């Protein structure tokens, strides 16, 4: 199928199609992209989580992911597949092809309606939807109100957990997390219709990690499996953490070894002075 002249010209200009070359597409179905959301304008350029409708990019995304994968480092096969698909299903008016460094994928964006699509909109499997970062921001504002900073902190933590899990090819992630999702997952997403379901939140993402996965993660991080941090949301603690402050004695608690026996107690007056403000607070 011949390319429309305008597209052909643009692709040639970008160097994707060589002069006079006919691109014949047959098996672009293997293309790993699936229906997801993307918008370049929102979020860190290199962040691979922008497709996630529950992800709002925070500073961490900028620092950690950097600039992402440059366009020239894409596998040739992927680019060829994409070009074949474009040749078969040329982009309608107002649609432009956009490259995302984070996911190392192309998506298609409608300049007028601000809708996005992983496939060419004319592709039979194409699902056109709102960009994920925009959904995520709305979602965040609904969930957390204006406390954006608080949200981003939590989200950041959840993101790191999620990121670790996925690096291992983590089991039990939602289909949102799997850019190379299988077709049944794809169908599930399609059936759900509105991708923004309000009851789904970050908590669910945390729970999705099974206890076994959490313990594996703890082992990898060197956390004691008996530490609540290994299987729960508690932060990693030291030995003295959780002890009540008023259990501290007068002697120097930091002294150890031979020093331990050379730690004098404070004078009674000092103790009384120390206790006085505390009692005042109690009353």
């Amino acid at each position, binding site marked *: 199928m011949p390319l429309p002249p305008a597209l052909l010209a643009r692709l040639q200009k970008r160097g994707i199609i060589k002069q006079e070359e006919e691109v014949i597409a047959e098996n672009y179905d293997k293309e790993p992209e699936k229906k997801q959301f993307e918008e370049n304008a929102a979020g860190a350029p290199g962040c691979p989580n922008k497709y996630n409708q529950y992800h709002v990019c925070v500073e961490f995304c900028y620092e950690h992911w950097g600039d992402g994968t440059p366009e020239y480092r894409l596998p040739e096969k992927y680019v060829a597949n994409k070009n074949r698909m474009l040749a078969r299903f040329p982009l309608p008016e107002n649609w432009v092809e956009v490259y995302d460094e984070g996911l190392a994928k192309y998506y298609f964006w409608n300049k007028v309606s601000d809708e996005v699509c992983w496939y060419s909109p004319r592709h039979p499997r194409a699902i056109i939807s709102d960009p994920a970062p925009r959904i995520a921001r709305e979602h965040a504002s609904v969930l957390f109100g204006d406390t954006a900073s608080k949200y981003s902190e939590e989200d950041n933590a959840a993101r790191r957990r999620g990121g670790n899990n996925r690096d291992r090819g983590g089991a039990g992630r939602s289909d949102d997390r799997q850019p190379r999702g299988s077709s049944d997952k794809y169908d599930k997403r399609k059936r759900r219709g509105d991708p923004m379901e309000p009851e789904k939140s970050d908590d669910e993402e945390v729970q999705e990690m099974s206890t076994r996965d959490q313990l594996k993660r703890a082992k990898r991080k060197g956390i004691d499996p008996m530490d609540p941090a290994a299987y729960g949301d508690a932060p990693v603690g030291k030995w003295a953490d959780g002890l009540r402050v*008023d*259990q*501290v*004695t*007068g*002697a120097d608690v930091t002294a150890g070894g031979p020093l331990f*026996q*050379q*730690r*004098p*107690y*404070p*004078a*009674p*007056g000092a*103790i*009384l002075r*120390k*206790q006085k403000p505390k009692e005042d607070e109690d009353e």
Partner: protein
Amino acid sequence: MSYMLPHLENGWQVDQAILAEEDRVVVVRFGHDWDPTCMQMDETLFKIAPKVKNFAVVYLVDITKVPDFNKMYELYDPCTVMFFFRNKHIMVDLGTGNNNKINWAVTDGQELIDIIETVYRGARKGRGLVVSPKDYSTKYKY
């Protein structure tokens, strides 16, 4: 014999008793008068109190009535004797591993006099830690 020795009824009195002594060691026994261990210790303390009156003064503190120092001084034992000199806690290396206090009943009066005298001499020289004339590491005969 605890009724013969002066008791301190509250934290302020303990503080003042220690502050008031300019040139004597203050020996404070923390515990309960009714405790058998304390009874033994008080017996010894009462016995030696007149003998050491030139360089030491003995006070008794009921740790139930005066709980202010229990936490800070780690007063878990039935009987605890601590030494202060010029508002400073004086440690004694008794060989038991705990230099802060005597937490058993000393039954030999002369031993206790020796300890107090050592504390006095050391503290006068500005030492915070003195070595007991007798090693109590083998105090327990297993």
